[in-house]
């Protein structure tokens, strides 16, 4: 009998349809548990708005973020006495529109966080899979390197790396990726260790699956839940760390409208013009809070232990 016989084709089509239905059912179940957490849904909505803001910044921003309006230095927000309709959230000390800078800043913060998380997740998962699957010397070497990274406070290590690589956005991104890496390696390794002796993995090995297939196709999909939750947490950490590095002058450099850099530049005006400090910080807080709310919801929806309780 060959695979091309009509009966075999019908079987394959049936299996594919079943698999599609199973995926749909899984997603429906996930969404049911996720949507039980109202905070998570609100967080997701805010996060979606922030993404829209970042993508359509040139359309949404009322002004160019770098243009200095010489007649409007430190103009207060519109609702305060002396505020101007053209500058909703006021201007900074060189007359740049704060709202436009915050809208453009979303591009930097979210963009950097996405890059950082992609780098940390892919590298961390590969290293964790290698360590957990290979064991032995590979495991020891990888895990001791991760222990060393974890021995340093994250921000200090990021600062030192930024010094070595010269301050700037790229080096800040690389530094934060390295700092976040051990969490993914440890999580993946732990999950792989608990999965590798399960029957389905042994069955796949006996059926002749190679190492790469066993690692990435057989084991990895069953370790995804904690990794997704960790990726969300790392996303918010990355935003905070980028802002902190910018604040300390080791991240994005002025006049880049990155939120932390904006705060650093505004520091000396805090007692004279509260708005130059308040709004960029509020933008960081709202973004991080929204992502953490989503993270809590994901954890509730993906953790089977919590589902049962």
């Amino acid at each position: 009998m060959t695979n091309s016989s009509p009966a075999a084709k019908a079987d394959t089509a049936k299996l594919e349809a079943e698999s599609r239905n199973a995926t749909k059912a899984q997603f429906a179940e996930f969404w049911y548990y996720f949507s039980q957490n109202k905070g998570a849904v609100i967080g997701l909505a805010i996060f979606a708005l922030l993404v829209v803001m970042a993508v359509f910044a040139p359309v949404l921003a009322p002004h160019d973020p770098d243009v200095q309006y010489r007649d409007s230095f430190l103009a207060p927000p519109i609702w305060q006495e002396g505020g101007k309709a053209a500058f909703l959230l006021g201007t900074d000390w060189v007359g740049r529109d704060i709202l436009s800078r915050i809208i453009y800043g979303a591009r930097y913060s979210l963009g950097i966080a996405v890059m950082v998380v992609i780098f940390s997740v892919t590298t961390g998962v590969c290293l964790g899979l290698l360590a957990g699957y290979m064991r032995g010397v590979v495991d020891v070497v990888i895990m001791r390197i991760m222990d060393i990274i974890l021995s340093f406070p994250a921000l200090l290590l990021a600062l030192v790396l930024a010094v070595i690589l010269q301050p700037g956005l790229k080096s800040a991104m690389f530094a934060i990726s390295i700092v976040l890496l051990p969490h993914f390696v440890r999580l993946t390794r732990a999950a792989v260790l608990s999965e590798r002796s399960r029957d389905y993995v042994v069955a796949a090995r006996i059926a002749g699956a190679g190492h790469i297939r066993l690692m990435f196709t057989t084991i990895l999909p069953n370790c995804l839940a904690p990794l997704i939750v960790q990726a969300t947490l790392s996303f918010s950490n990355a935003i905070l760390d980028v802002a902190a590095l910018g604040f300390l002058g080791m991240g994005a450099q002025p006049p880049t409208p990155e939120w932390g850099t904006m705060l650093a530049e505004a520091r000396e005006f805090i007692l004279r013009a509260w708005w130059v400090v308040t709004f960029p910080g509020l933008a960081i807080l709202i973004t991080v809070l929204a992502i953490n709310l989503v993270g809590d919801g994901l954890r509730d929806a993906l953790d089977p232990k919590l589902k049962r309780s």
Partner: protein
Amino acid sequence: MLRFILGRIGLLIPTFFGVTFVAFLFIRLLPGDPLELLAGERGISPERKAQLMVQMGFDKPFLQQYWDYVVGIFHGDLGVSFASKKPVLDEFLTLFPATAELALCAIILAVCLGIPAGIFAAVKRGSFFDQTIMGTALVGYSMPIFWWALLLIVFFSGTLGWTPVSGRISLMYFFPQVTGFMLIDSLLSGEKGAFLSALSHLILPSIVLATIPLAVIARQTRSAMLEVLGEDYVRTARAKGLPPRRVIGLHALRNALIPVITTIGLQVGVLLTGAILTETIFSWPGIGKWLIESISRRDYTVVQGGLLMIAGVIMVVNLIVDVLYGLINPRIRHN
């Protein structure tokens, strides 16, 4: 137990060498010639450079240099600061009490507020109080603390004028350092008003530094308590007719605190990271401010030494937490 402790120390040895290697590599990875970097903008003559190469051991093979560096560390030699010309270790030891005082106050604040808040939220699960406490904790956990510090300065120092903006104590007071902890030294000095001045300087930085640990501890206590409150022995205690306060305070809390202690230990890294930002904003003369200033002054031996010492502090504290955890949880000890 001794085997358990020795095992944990044994695990630290490769990490210790790794950490020293990172600190050793730091100066060698900087772009440019390390000696010219260390000399700064004044530059250096070729003769002096050759002399320094030999003096600092840069002419030796790489591994020999690393070995000399490690031997130096065991002799307390972390190099000399290029800015102050003082040994890095001396500077660290002078400044460390300031950071320790701040970090201790912050962690005491976080534990004293976080654990009761977590217990209360767990006991009143699903209530308005639970939601408010957990909502506040999530905001605290998401807080960019450098911004939070600026807001507190604007409100409490700028608008209300209640607290000073920077430093550890008013310049009016001068007394010798005994413990390095300003609160204790000011009390010992007997100078009128000195203690209050030190306390008022400490309040805002402590609140800022405590914010994230407080939120983490409250969340962790709540989830640990919820887990324990569902256990059979708690139900039995309730069924025996014990008053709720005794069930929660004695039966549940003792076991719920085990994971919380680990969480508190893990906050040391968070505190030291936070100290870098908090000390910079409040001009608090501790390790964090010292490191940031050294980075901007390009005083790289200080950065190298500080990096090593901070990693050392974190490693030691983690070891203590591990041992404590084994001490109170026999399951860990016997695995």
